């Protein structure tokens, strides 16, 4: 009953000072809205990285030559040639946790058909590549193990390549093309995969038997990568360890020597990228949090002004029977109402701008429920925290001193 009256009093005070209240709220509104929008952007990009990476095959494992470069240590060129076909065979034969595996060599060049040409990358792999990458064919068929053995001059094209060298829509399967002046027969077209989160066109590629690429295009005898897929996502970390063991033995590394290759699962890749985006999120939220703090200080400021300005009113309220606690509560409720209303508007604005960002800027967003709850709670606490001191001051006034205040 009494609290209800005080809410009514506080509400009237707010309504009487509409514009000022709104301006005070602005800080809170912007603070909350930016916290929600920033978190939505952060969450959204994290989710989209995760989904892109797992669409690339979530139990995929890659082996690259050279030590782990995540620390940014430079390596000399010979280190990049340390992976051989023998290594691949050892991994394939000895591992127990892998379902598919392929060596991989790659190089850039021009794809040419008649008068059309297009710069692309050729990947030399074995037929298991499709299973590892989880891609299908939109037409034609994959090359066979026999074609790998004979280093046959056959290729499969990605959609982007098809569009650029067969602009008139003719069926590429069966056609002859050239990659860097070497003629190839097109035997299939890869399914479209689109862009990944990093903006890479996953359809801009040519696939051929690795033997063909090694001998006829790159003229190398080492391989660039080993790609494999673990039997399941759960065993992927174990598979990484297993492959590492096999390769250390294969390379005759002594216990104190570091790996001259690195094995990575998709899971690790996900966490690498997520941690980058997580840091960005923390940064964004920190900025947003600061604006929330400034909003809170704005409330405190306005409550101080309000108490000063209404000292006479406080005196009068005390003169007609208002107790210290009534006055304290009145101003506290006022501060909380301002901050909560501001918080509410902030949530709406935050959700609105998230929709805008998603639809017009085409950034992936994902609103986390916790971001709404947390920023709302922070708002209420801000109101109490920054409203408390001015309210205390008002409540401690002497009725006669307050009444005489000019």
């Amino acid at each position, binding site marked *: *009953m*009494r609290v209800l*009256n005080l809410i*009514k*009093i506080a509400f*009237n005070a707010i309504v*009487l000072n509409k514009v000022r209240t709104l301006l005070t709220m602005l800080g809170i509104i912007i603070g909350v809205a930016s916290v929600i929008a920033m978190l939505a952007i952060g969450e959204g990009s994290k989710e989209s990285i995760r989904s892109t990476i797992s669409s690339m095959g979530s139990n995929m494992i890659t082996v690259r030559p050279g030590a782990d470069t995540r620390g940014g240590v430079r390596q000399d060129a010979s280190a990049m040639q340390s992976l051989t076909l023998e290594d691949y065979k050892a991994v394939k034969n000895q591992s127990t946790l892998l379902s598919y595996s392929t060596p991989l060599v790659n190089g850039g060049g021009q794809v040419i058909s008649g008068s059309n040409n297009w710069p692309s990358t050729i990947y030399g792999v074995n037929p298991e590549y499709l299973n590892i990458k989880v891609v299908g064919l939109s037409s034609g068929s994959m090359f066979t193990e026999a074609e790998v053995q004979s280093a046959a001059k056959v290729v499969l094209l990605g959609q982007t390549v098809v569009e650029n060298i067969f602009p008139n829509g003719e069926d590429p399967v069966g056609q002859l093309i050239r990659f860097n002046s070497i003629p190839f027969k097109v035997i299939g077209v890869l399914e479209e995969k689109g862009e990944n989160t990093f903006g890479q066109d996953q359809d801009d590629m040519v696939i051929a038997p690795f033997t063909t690429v090694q001998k006829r295009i790159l003229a190398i005898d080492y391989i660039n990568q080993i790609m494999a897929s673990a039997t399941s996502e759960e065993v992927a970390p174990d598979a990484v360890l297993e492959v590492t063991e096999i390769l250390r033995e294969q390379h005759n590394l002594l216990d104190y020597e570091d790996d001259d290759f690195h094995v990575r699962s998709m899971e690790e890749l996900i966490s690498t990228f997520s941690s980058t985006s997580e840091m960005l999120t923390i940064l964004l939220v920190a900025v947003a949090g600061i604006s929330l703090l400034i909003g809170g200080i704005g409330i405190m400021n306005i409550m101080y002004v309000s108490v000063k300005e209404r000292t*006479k*009113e406080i005196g*009068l*309220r*005390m*003169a*007609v*029977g*208002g*107790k*210290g*606690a*009534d006055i304290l509560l009145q101003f506290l409720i006022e501060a909380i109402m301002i901050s909560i209303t501001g918080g509410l508007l902030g949530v709406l604005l935050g959700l609105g701008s998230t929709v805008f960002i998603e639809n017009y800027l085409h950034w992936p967003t994902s609103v986390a429920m916790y971001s709404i709850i947390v920023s709302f709670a922070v708002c209420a606490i801000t109101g109490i925290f920054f409203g408390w001191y001015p309210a205390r001051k008002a409540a401690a006034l002497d*009725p*006669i001193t307050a*009444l005489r205040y000019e």
Partner: protein
Amino acid sequence: MKREIINIEKLTREFTMGTQTVHALRGISFVINEGEFVTIMGSSGSGKSTLLNILGCLDKPTSGSYSIDGVRVKDLSRNQLATIRNEKIGFIFQSYNLLARTSAIENVELPLLYNSKVTSEERKERAIKALRMVGLGERLNHTPSQLSGGQQQRVAIARSLVNDPVMVLADEATGNLDTRTSYEIMSLFQELNERGITIAFVTHEPDIANFSNRTIVLQDGNIKKDHINTDIQSAVKELNLLPVEDQ
């Protein structure tokens, strides 16, 4: 014996300002019984407002004792004083002290907002009744800026009456008003007094004192005179005797 509403004894009030001490009240004693209409007079600075503020529990005496309706004020906490102000006292200020941009009815409701025993319907009812009593039944939703000085003072009077106080304290309630309006207000006070409400009324004007049944005159913080008025004038009659202004 009559019920003692106010009983003060050797009341002093000093204000210290730096090294200087102002003796606003220098030891005042008197008793006001239920149903009395007392005017407090004296020259400017004689301590009238200081006295009234103490009687209204807005201020505390430096020394001496004060009992209101049998309760010793000295023993009360801040909250208990607030309750006394809320339930027993109606205070009227010279400067009205209404809440700006707030309707007459809400201004009058104010004391009841701090009384949890009063429901919101009852609050409204009592506020309307009090406003009708002071002749503002037609101005319930006017804000102070839409009312004349006399009307604003009536709102303030209605506010002081709305909690059914045992006494009403008025500090120069007619100080800012013309003679006609002052007489109107005084007739209102006489009417209230007839209903049994005790009134202490601070004023400068001797003709106003004629409407009360007792006058206490202060001088320099002391009581100079305290006398019963045997010839009480009726404010309504005086009002009718006033020359009718051009209408």
